């Protein structure tokens, strides 16, 4: 955990989290021994290909999916030790914004009920009209009109629906928000608007965020730190600046070289990843990335790489870290 200063105020920390899904074909290790921390007030990006376990990790943090092993600490609370009533209280403090703006809104509920449901659940607001005013101000805060509250979700565009989803997450005034690929289903122009909105809200409400994405260009804009996930394992963790300027893990390098750059004269040294992410049913021995790594040799198949601190701001889980 060298990437995180010890004296920082940590809001959320994960230690040794694993999630195994039993299937007919055997156990799928969606997450294996994942550890990182999210300092209060920061935005941590979680990146990786499809199937790397990003979404499962986000769900496990909020206990929407129960992790198989590991500790999740939110402030001073061990989230996995909470009973139902305590968990319900804790849910006010941490929220999630989903990827798909269509399936994440109940088509049969009006916007005011979608946003107001949590207010009723947690007894926020004294009466109906007060809750209505809260919904109205939430809608304004995310850039919609207060009278949109009487409409149904199908009357909105994808970007507007995502704003409704954001307002819903904000309704309980959380401290921590998991944004699960919250812009990747949107048009590029709308993506920028939603990212700006999230940046604004983060500053105004002093939010702490885990920003899940599969491409690094979106993450660079918003994040202070970045955790790179491959096949359910952390492969590199560092500050955004450090990771972008000198990525240490071959996988991070490949991801960075795949990100588009808006400069026609820019000559990139592209590292194209060959093949697919291996099946989590039977992950490769040793370093799980070795099957697609251009630097891999016999030692990579034999040894599981331990985290190597390259600087106080960067940790790489690569056996050859520093030498490649």
């Amino acid at each position, binding site marked *: 955990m060298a990437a995180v200063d010890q004296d920082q105020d940590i809001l959320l920390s994960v230690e040794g989290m694993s999630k195994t899904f039993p299937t007919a074909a055997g156990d799928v290790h969606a997450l294996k021994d994942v550890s990182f921390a999210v300092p209060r007030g920061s935005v941590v990006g979680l990146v990786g290909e499809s199937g790397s376990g990003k979404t499962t990790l986000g769900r496990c943090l909020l206990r929407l999916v129960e992790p198989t092993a590991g500790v999740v600490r939110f402030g001073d609370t061990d989230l996995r030790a909470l009973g139902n009533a305590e968990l319900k209280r804790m849910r006010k403090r941490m929220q999630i914004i989903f990827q798909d703006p269509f*399936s994440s809104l109940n*088509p049969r509920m009006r916007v005011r009920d979608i946003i107001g*449901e949590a207010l009723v659940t947690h007894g926020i607001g004294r009466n109906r009209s007060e809750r209505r005013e809260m919904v109205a101000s939430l809608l304004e805060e995310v850039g919609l009109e207060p009278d949109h509250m009487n409409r149904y979700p199908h009357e909105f565009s994808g970007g507007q629906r995502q704003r409704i989803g954001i307002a819903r997450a904000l309704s309980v005034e959380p401290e921590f928000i998991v944004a699960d690929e919250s812009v990747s289903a949107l048009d590029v122009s709308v993506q920028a608007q939603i990212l700006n909105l999230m940046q604004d809200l983060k500053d105004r409400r002093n939010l702490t965020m885990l920003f899940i994405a599969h491409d690094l260009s979106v993450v660079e804009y918003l994040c202070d730190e970045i955790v790179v996930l491959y096949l359910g394992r952390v492969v590199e963790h560092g500050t955004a600046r450090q990771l972008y300027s000198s990525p240490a893990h071959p996988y991070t390098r490949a991801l960075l070289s795949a990100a588009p750059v808006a400069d026609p004269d820019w000559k990139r040294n592209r590292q194209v990843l060959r093949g697919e992410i291996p099946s989590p049913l039977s992950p490769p021995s040793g370093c799980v990335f070795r099957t697609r790594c251009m630097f891999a040799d016999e030692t990579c198949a034999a040894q599981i790489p331990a985290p190597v601190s390259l600087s106080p701001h960067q940790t790489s889980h690569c056996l050859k870290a520093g030498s490649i």
Partner: protein
Amino acid sequence: MAQIEHVSMEAGLASALMQRRTVVVGLIILAVFAFAAVFAPWITSFDPSALSVRDRLTPPNATWWLGTDEFGRDVFTRLVYAGRVSLLVGAGVAFLSSIIGIVLGLLGGFFRRLDGIVSRVIDAMMAFPDILLAISLVAALGGSVANVIIALSIVYAPRIARIVRASTLVIRELTYVEAARALGVSTWRIMLNHLLRNMVSPIIVQATFVFAYAMLAEAGLSFLGVGVDPETPTWGTMINAGRQYIGDAGWMIMSPGLSITACVLALQIVGDGLRDALDPRISKEL
């Protein structure tokens, strides 16, 4: 995305139904029977059980529009009053079996631990022939309108339960249910607000069909003599009585038989219409 498209169903449903001529005919037939059942005492001045032995087995004429039966009772009057019982049983069964089916289906679909038991009970009940199960239930409960409704609701509840369970399995995996869980919304509220609200259309469609089946089954039970009290006029008991006079007084069996046919047919047409109107994939093509 199928559910998103038919979201405006409440507004568009009426006009979508009215565009289909057969559905309109079905609705008119049902409206006529419902009107007759509700206003029975104003429609006919006869008493459904007033005997007039002198006039027994009179063919239809200006006084007795549909003739008289073997005790000289007015067939038209009995037909109208019988419609009350038939429609009450149909509506009662459609309602009660929907309630039972919704509870069973939600429990089975939402709680995996209960699913095994609920599904096996549903399978076991559907393995019995409908009418046989109804006969044994009415025999156990005793013959009255209320007991017939209860018995038939038990018989038809699995049809609703199956649909509710299947819809629950699909909807509970959708993101908005996960969002509700993340917000700490109670399971009870999730079931009501998120699950049930999104499966109203298939339940309404199936309940319409159950309405029709229940009317047929009630007539069958009454015809077999295991339904309501034989003195209560129902279309089934009327057919049973008319059976013995079929050669001499065909009108006795004709009118209740046609009433059942018309009602069930109308319900089926309306049910089909509802299904088409509520299914965006079919309604778009028309």
